[in-house]
């Protein structure tokens, strides 16, 4: 397995601003993903962070709202833009290695928009 560090662990943001979440893995991984989990709800896949190219977004999520970067095999960022109260949620980073099947998760970032 690997260890994923996510920063910040929580934040309170003003409506209309943006928050960038960082995800650092302690070893190289093939695949990185971003999920959203609203309180008491399931994990919803936002996008696949592709190294060196644009992220692949799931239906209902767009790049303008959730820009993602992945400059190398151990690091990715997710920005949640133009925040509204509906964006209040937990955002989780996940990673998997080539050939390994387990997906491991960061501790999550709890975002509250006021």
């Amino acid at each position, binding site marked *: 397995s690997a260890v994923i560090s996510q920063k910040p662990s929580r934040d309170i943001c003003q409506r209309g601003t943006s928050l960038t979440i960082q995800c650092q893995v302690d070893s190289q991984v093939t695949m990185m993903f971003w999920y959203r989990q609203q309180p008491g709800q399931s994990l919803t896949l936002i996008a696949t962070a592709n190294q060196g190219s644009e992220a692949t977004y799931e239906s209902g999520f767009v790049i303008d709202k959730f820009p993602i970067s992945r400059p190398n095999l151990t690091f990715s960022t997710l920005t949640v833009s133009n925040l509204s109260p509906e964006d209040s949620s937990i955002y989780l980073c996940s990673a998997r290695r080539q050939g390994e*099947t387990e997906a491991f998760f960061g501790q999550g970032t709890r975002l509250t928009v006021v």
Partner: protein
Amino acid sequence: QQPVQSPQAVILREGEDAVINCSSSKALYSVHWYRQKHGEAPVFLMILLKGGEQKGHDKISASFNEKKQQSSLYLTASQLSYSGTYFCGTEIGRGSTLGRLYFGRGTQLTVWP
């Protein structure tokens, strides 16, 4: 693409058994099971890759019926530490979707002494 999980909630006494089911309308490449405790990250339990395969981890096991696209998680002689929300994550096919997991709504399991 979200799988369907049942039941939504289970309440058990310590030592009792439980079964959690997960089904998909899509052809599955794999099924992953996770447990999440409140305020914590999901923790990987096991993965099932082949039809009819059954895996076990201590007193927790799972099966995957590839023909029906269904998986079941079996918790035997439950312990207090089993309490949490259980999620199944499904991986659909291969190619461009390889690696992506789509999760069910979760099953909240509560074990009482």
